[in-house]
């Protein structure tokens, strides 16, 4: 059983929902990420989504664009991101880590090489923003062969017929994008999300994480009421942006947000 599945099974058994933070690897510098991952776990997260820096993050808003620019100023590469996870795994064998990013750095490395090295580093899943299942026919089976879960996106514009097809290709969990927009967009509408998730439950048994527009304990708790996981990114990355050069303050800001969300979700 994959680490992701184990994680969601355990959460289900205890009646809790997954808190899934996103941070861009290497933001604002490569030294930041490993201690941050450990502190996130201590603060109560269940799965970590680690962003792979890319020069052209088409689906991201300004907050994550700038995070990627900060990481790329240090030339943080996909290989280095995998190395960070390998180090993380020397002391943590339980928290699932999902790499989230765009296809081109993986294509450049070569899918076979990437899948093999990612699995060896202890990475559990891959979410490729610009890889819909239609284009994943070669890549997805290769990832699965190496024990990597393929996390696909579902959107408000995804028809039910399409969602069914996507979920057939997905494993681990699926990621529902709560609104039409880029990361860091305005607040989500929980009623709309609840309606859509009820429909999606008719086509899949996979856990459903919801992201985009979650910014505090209240919105995290509201989403946790209808979803299996709450994904939070831009509000964390904002803490890094506000404290470049002050890594301890940045990490303290992030863990404060996480603790607030955790408490609100578990209440």
């Amino acid at each position, binding site marked *: 059983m994959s680490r992701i599945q184990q994680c969601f099974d355990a959460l289900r058994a205890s009646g809790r929902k997954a808190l899934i933070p996103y941070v861009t690897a290497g933001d604002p510098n490569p030294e930041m990420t490993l201690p941050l991952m450990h502190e996130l776990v201590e603060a109560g997260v269940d799965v970590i989504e680690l962003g792979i*820096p*890319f*020069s*052209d*993050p*088409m*689906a*991201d*808003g*300004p907050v994550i*664009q700038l995070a990627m*620019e900060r990481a*790329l100023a240090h*030339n943080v*590469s*996909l*290989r280095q991101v995998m190395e960070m996870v390998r180090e993380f795994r020397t002391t943590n064998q339980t928290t699932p880590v999902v790499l989230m990013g*765009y*296809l*081109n*750095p*993986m*294509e*450049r*490395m070569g899918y076979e090489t990437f899948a093999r090295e990612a699995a060896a580093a202890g990475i559990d899943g891959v979410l490729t*923003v*610009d*890889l*819909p299942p*239609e*284009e994943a026919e070669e890549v997805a089976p290769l990832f699965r062969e190496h024990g990597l879960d393929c996390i*696909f*996106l*579902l*959107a*408000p*514009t*995804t*028809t039910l017929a*399409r969602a069914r097809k*996507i979920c057939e290709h997905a494993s681990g969990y699926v990621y529902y*994008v709560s609104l*039409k*927009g*880029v990361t860091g*967009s305005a607040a989500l509408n929980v009623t709309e999300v609840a309606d859509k998730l009820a429909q999606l439950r008719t086509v899949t048994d996979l856990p459903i994480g919801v992201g985009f527009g979650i910014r505090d304990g209240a919105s995290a708790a509201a989403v946790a009421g209808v979803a299996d996981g709450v994904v939070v990114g831009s509000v964390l990355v904002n803490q890094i942006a506000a404290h470049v050069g002050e890594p301890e303050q940045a990490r303290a800001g992030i863990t404060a947000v996480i603790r607030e969300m955790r408490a609100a979700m578990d209440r």
Partner: protein
Amino acid sequence: MADSNPIDYASVPDQRGHFGPYGGRFVSETLMDALEELETLYEKLSRDPEFQAEFDRDLAHYVGRPSPLYFAERLSAKVGGAQIWLKREDLNHTGAHKVNNTIGQALLAKHMGKPRVIAETGAGQHGVATATVAARLGLKCQVYMGAEDVKRQALNVYRMKLLGAEVIPVTSGSKTLKDAMNEAMRDWVTNIDDTFYIIGTVAGPHPYPKLVRDFQCVIGREAREQSLAQAGRLPDALVACVGGGSNAIGLFHPFLEDQDVAMYGVEAGGDGLETGRHAAPLASGRPGVLHGNRTYLMEDENGQIIETHSVSAGLDYPGVGPEHSWLKDVGRVNYVDATDTEALAAFRELTLVEGIMPALESSHAVAYAMKLAATMRPDQIIVVNLSGRGDKDIHTVAGIDGISV
């Protein structure tokens, strides 16, 4: 080429938008439904005689087509080789080939009932062409333009404003065309319900490379008829500049089955390919995925897209339309380059000898055609796509001359 197993050029793209290994639809999930809707509508309208008649009518009476095929006799004599003929897309309304495509896509937007259009632009020609059709159809229009290009192309920025469009300078990344395209995609994903994205070149997710090609093919269809009528035969060679590659594909595509017609796509050589400061992904890049399609890209060893350089803003793009990648691999089109210096020399030469001031983009094609002509016989014919006029570049050229106008 008496090939027993000829390539079927009409077979691409396939149903999924693939040109061999290139093209496709690499976008985030939110856009997939809109792209499928656009594809379905376009498949229907492309076979609808009424839609085609509407398109042809607009091209005739609004754009001013057909554009002439002009024998540049003095330039040819000066070069001393093959005859150089110019396909005068610079004479179109708004001054470039871009309007052929924006007319077509605006008609699609109208059929879909979208009240708002967005576009990305590099040199500003596509932005102007989009703002123009938006004004004519009463559509709200926002144009994304790299902050660097806003500076380089101040005249076109003001033209767009006069046409009622809002120009949004993009300050992320390298602040040029690729970043404008990122930003337009972000806008589209946010405003997908009421917005039609008018992509300016034969790139992006399927069905854009196909539909933009189809709209631009009027260039090659006319050139083919005109060559037969005026010269009594098909040309020996076609030359067009390639940034994203829409003017080139428009000229080349209707000739692909004519095996005796050689084709040259001219990329921006910038300071020279050997310096690394250029915008020639077909010459020196490798396949990757950007902006919704797989194609040749300029990237570093980690798969990050690298900054490009060209004196012409319209060619300053690290990717290229996926059909060009395929045509390179199958060997049908020769992809070559012209440097900034060569393009500027051609700009001056055509202006002085023929009284025609080409866009700096098109000057790359003229520069290569002059080199090519010199190696050919006087009874041979080269058709060059003069894709745009150079008025917008006068500031750039004057600046290089150290003159402020």
